[in-house]
């Protein structure tokens, strides 16, 4: 909401502040000023000049030479190309060294304005410039009397040569932009903000005195109103104006509307807009002669009811929407826009003013369904105070009379079944102080309430709240009123001093952090991707048609299909990130993500889904399957998972290379999987490099993780190492060999290390050579050859049973 300071000052006389002071104080008392703009910020040395004499330019057909009286004795000479000036005209003149806001074409305005200096135009001296409204930083939208092309001309008699032209145009003003919170419906009108300003600066608040001069007739002879759906229309008021004379509204009204960003149209439209801005109460004017049956009916629309709004758009209504009808047909969509069939035209003679109160939620939903967003609607949506309607409609009628725009028929139609009464809130200064941590005396609190028109009753210890402050409901709300005028800044700063609590990170988060840090040591950087994605990812990842991962939580109103399901696999996010990097030619990329997948327990969703944090690692470039395997093991070791990890090559993942994938099994339970990305999937993600991924399920890791460590002692007795070399079928996995060595090695086996693996010449087709170095140690004594020989014999015989041939 934008409002000029001059309009606020109209209701807060004596308010004398700079724009910055106003901004700071209002913001601290709760009416946040987002910014302000001085309308005269780039207007310097601009006065009213009267053209005394016009002569042709000796050397240019399109230029004229004017002698202009600027109130300084001798007229000054100005050369102009403007076509619209005549001798005797009063015009804005920027003097030598002055400044204007923009060019005459109305194009974008330079930040610092345009400096004007005297000079020569085609050899003739020119000591200033006559200005168009665009050069003064505005436009014909806001100054409709300005000519389309050319210099702004003042009304004769309204100004004198030498006057401040900027002031004469109403541009010595500052327009403030507010961020009004949705609970302060009253502050969506200038009067509400003025009331806040008065309270903030300790000035009297003087709203307009509304008195309507009306004729002897009765409005009831002109119109009858019936509200059929009172649940959506708590109040409907109407008045009639006859003998209407459509014309422009006065300059002061145009200026105020312009400053609020509303284009002046004519006196009647301007009055409705002006009152809407002033009181925050939208109004509508109907041409009474178009209303059939002298009747207004407020009802829900019929399903599929067609309607054309005054902007010429056709709409199809439904039975959730409220319409204003005459005896035969709808003439307006309540609270949103009137109809073309009843709109005010220049030929209007008699008019019906409407100031009503509609159900805010209903208006909002209707507007949404219709795809409409009008000023009136945005005000109604917030839920207006029905008690404001009469004041607004009377104010409009007062202005009609004042502006000579018509004659007001006596009386008001007012359909108001359930009057809204002021709320009474129990109040305790002590409780307020206890909540705020302050020591503010009761009298001071009452002082703040008075300014806000809240009435404190010492008898009952209650505060009566006017209906326009529907945001105030309980003691906490009153505490806020006290706090914001006492000043949030003046409230002390303390720390809570209750029972001590232990700050902690839950175990699951500690495990996550340890895993993340280890990944970072291994060169993986942290990525973050969206939780939702496209249902198409499952095809992209070659998931089976009946894969359970395809059972997803679907967003009913997504931003688009690409963001429509909650992910059940973290892979797509990771592969997209790798793909972005690959396409940007980043080399050797390693990423991890620690984020949730969302597994529904049943569909449609009727219970909280299983939100499982997945630790996803992905890389391309330097490194291979075993690099990734190493990272997985480093991470598991870091979180105390030191038991032997089993890698089952039958992970069953379609998106991984069929010969290069493994389920990661710990303690007999699958805790994740890893592998090389299937080249088809890499193609789908446009990654032209081998990609390795690993996914670990954090809830399972958390179950098995520990940060407990026990010192095991450093071996005192020497170790014995034996190397064995064997030839075996290619299809045998070294994992099988290792299991046998471990099983048969018994207690004295300390470690085993694969030190050579070879296929090729010297080894027969289909076989491979594998060599291990096996270390034995007894913690209690020095091993003898015989001990080791016995164990080795068991190992070798078990290996031979697998068909493994030992190389001697």
């Amino acid at each position, binding site marked *: 909401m934008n409002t000029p300071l001059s309009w606020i000052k109209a209701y807060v006389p004596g308010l004398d502040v700079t724009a910055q002071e106003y901004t700071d104080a209002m913001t601290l008392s709760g009416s946040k000023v987002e910014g302000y703009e001085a309308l005269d910020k780039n207007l310097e040395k601009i006065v009213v000049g009267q053209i005394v004499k016009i002569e042709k330019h000796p050397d240019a057909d399109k230029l004229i030479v004017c002698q202009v009286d600027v109130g300084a004795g001798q007229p000054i000479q100005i050369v102009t190309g403007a076509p619209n000036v005549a001798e005797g005209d009063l015009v804005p003149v920027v003097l030598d060294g002055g400044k204007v806001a923009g060019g005459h074409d109305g194009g974008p305005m330079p930040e610092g304005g345009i400096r004007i200096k005297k000079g020569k135009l085609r050899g003739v001296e020119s000591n200033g410039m006559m200005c168009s409204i665009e050069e003064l930083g505005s436009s014909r939208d806001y100054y409709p009397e300005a000519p389309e092309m050319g210099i702004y001309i003042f009304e004769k008699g309204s100004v004198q040569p030498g006057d401040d032209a900027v002031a004469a145009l109403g541009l010595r003003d500052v327009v403030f932009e507010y961020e009004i919170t949705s609970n302060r419906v009253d502050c969506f009108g200038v009067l509400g903000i003025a009331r806040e300003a008065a309270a903030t600066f300790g000035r009297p608040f003087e709203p307009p005195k509304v008195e309507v001069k009306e004729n002897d007739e009765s409005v009831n002879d002109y119109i009858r109103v019936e509200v059929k759906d009172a649940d959506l229309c708590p109040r409907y008021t109407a008045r009639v104006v006859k003998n209407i004379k459509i014309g422009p509204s006065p300059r002061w009204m145009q200026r105020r509307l312009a400053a609020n960003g509303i284009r002046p149209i004519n006196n009647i439209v301007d009055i409705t807009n002006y009152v809407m801005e002033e009181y925050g109460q939208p109004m509508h004017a109907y041409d009474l002669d178009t209303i059939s049956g002298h009747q207004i009916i407020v009802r829900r629309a019929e399903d599929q009811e067609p309607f054309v709004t005054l902007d010429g758009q056709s709409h199809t209504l439904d039975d959730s929407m409220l319409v204003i009808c005459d005896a035969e047909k709808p003439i307006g969509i309540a609270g949103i826009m009137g109809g073309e069939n009843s709109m005010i035209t220049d030929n209007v003679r008699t008019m019906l003013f409407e100031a009503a109160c509609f159900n805010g939620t209903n208006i909002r939903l209707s507007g949404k369904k219709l795809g409409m967003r009008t000023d009136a609607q945005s005000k109604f949506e917030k839920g207006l105070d029905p008690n404001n309607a009469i004041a607004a409609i009377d104010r409009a009628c007062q202005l009609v009379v004042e502006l000579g725009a018509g004659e007001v028929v006596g009386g008001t139609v007012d359909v108001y079944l359930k009057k809204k009464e002021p709320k009474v809130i129990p109040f305790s200064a002590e409780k307020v102080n206890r*909540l705020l941590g302050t020591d503010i005396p009761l009298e001071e609190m009452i002082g703040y309430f008075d300014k806000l028109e809240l009435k404190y009753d010492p008898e009952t210890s209650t505060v009566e709240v006017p209906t326009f402050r529907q945001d105030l409901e309980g003691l906490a709300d009153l505490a806020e009123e006290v706090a914001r005028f006492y000043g949030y800044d003046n409230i002390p700063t303390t720390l809570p001093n209750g029972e001590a609590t232990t700050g902690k990170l839950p175990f699951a988060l500690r495990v996550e952090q340890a895993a993340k840090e280890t990944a970072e040591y291994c060169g993986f950087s942290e990525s973050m991707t969206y*939780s939702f994605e496209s249902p198409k990812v499952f095809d992209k990842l070659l998931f089976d048609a009946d894969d359970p991962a395809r059972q997803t939580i679907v967003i009913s109103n997504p931003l688009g299909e690409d963001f429509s399901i909650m992910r059940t696999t973290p892979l797509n996010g990771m592969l997209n990130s790798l793909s972005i990097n690959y396409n940007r030619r980043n080399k050797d990329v390693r990423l991890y993500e620690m984020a949730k997948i969302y597994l529904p327990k049943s569909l449609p969703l009727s219970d909280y889904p299983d939100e499982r944090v997945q630790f996803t690692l992905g890389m391309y470039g330097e490194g291979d399957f075993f690099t990734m395997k190493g990272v997985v093991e480093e991470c598991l070791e870091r979180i105390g998972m030191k038991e032997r990890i089993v890698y089952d090559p039958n992970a069953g993942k379609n998106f991984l290379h069929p010969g290069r994938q493994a389920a990661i099994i710990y303690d007999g339970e699958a805790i994740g999987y890893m592998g090389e990305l299937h080249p088809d999937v890499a193609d789908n993600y446009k990654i032209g490099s081998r990609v390795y991924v690993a996914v670990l399920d954090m809830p399972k890791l958390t179950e098995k993780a520990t940060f407990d460590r026990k010192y095991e002692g450093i071996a005192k007795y020497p170790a014995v190492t034996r190397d064995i070399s064997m030839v075996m079928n290619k299809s045998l996995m070294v994992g099988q060999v290792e299991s046998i060595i471990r099983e048969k090695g018994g207690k004295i086996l300390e470690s085993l290390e694969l030190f050579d693996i070879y296929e090729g010449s010297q080894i027969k087709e289909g076989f491979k050579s594998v060599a291990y170095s096996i270390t034995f140690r007894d913690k209690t004594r020095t091993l003898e050859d015989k001990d080791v020989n016995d164990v080795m014999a068991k190992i070798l015989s078990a290996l031979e049973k697998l068909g493994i041939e030992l190389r001697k």
Partner: protein
Amino acid sequence: MKERLEQICREAIGRIESAKELDTLNDIRVAFLGKKGELTSIMKSMKDIAPEERPAFGQMVNKTRAQIEQKMEEMKTRLARQARQAQLKAEVIDVTLPAKKGNLGHKHPNTIALDEVERIFIGMGYEVVDGPEVEKDYYNFEALNIPDGHPAKDEQDTFYINKEFLLRTQTSGAQVHVMETAPLPIRMISPGRVYRSDEVDATHSPCFHQIEGLVIDRHITFADLKGTLAEFARELFGEETKVKFRPHHFPFTEPSAEMDVTCFKCGGKGCRMCKGSGWIEILGCGMVHPRVLKMSGIDPEEYSGFAFGVGLERIALLKYEIDDMRLLYENDKRFLKQF
């Protein structure tokens, strides 16, 4: 004989002094002091000397041996030092050659900011708790004093799953879960993802992160809220940071406020980052609305509390001067490695 000894001594010392390498010294040792060395052979000729002169002669030989040995030691030390010096001289490297780095990975800027926030609040006795992202409408709205039809419900442009479930629009719902179940007093923060139906652009993302904070105890005051958050701001943005509380409106707190901090780029003088105001808006906060307490089964007459919500991306973007929010979700290596 004496002359002979003196001559050997001179000769030996002469050769020692002219030695250039440690090996030469060893040769000299063998030549003079070894089993077949000069001095040894003179000792052997002792039998040719009169017995009464033998002690004096023996002393002379020993003295000569001592002299030679001492000289030898001196020379050895000197040569060893020279050799070490030569080695060091030969081993000069170009220290400006590139480093061999381990290529450590980098944390996401969001995480760095979150870790900071967690560290500060854990230090103040807060527990970190998780909350569901797929949330019930009740916890996201109604329990936070946002009933059906409330404009705030619309302002937030919610992603719905069905009538009952939605993607949470704020982490505040986690408050309610904690209030319903945890023993009092409560001091917790709850970070996590939240969702709003905003199209992706430089300043919006449909999926982003918030951190919710909640304190419930007897006698918690607005002054405590101010003190706690001022402390937080100083920890996060530096000791010099000042804070300003402005009245605001949130349905689930009353009184409510927004907190600004002095611009951490210009220190409050006014710059492009703070749009000249010297202040930067950082979080929303307030005293927990009595209705919210009551709905969660806490007696507002006995207990009070405060809550606050911080946008994680906002802090990360401001702190690291990142000018486009989309960068946070692209995961470009060249972006991530700057943190």
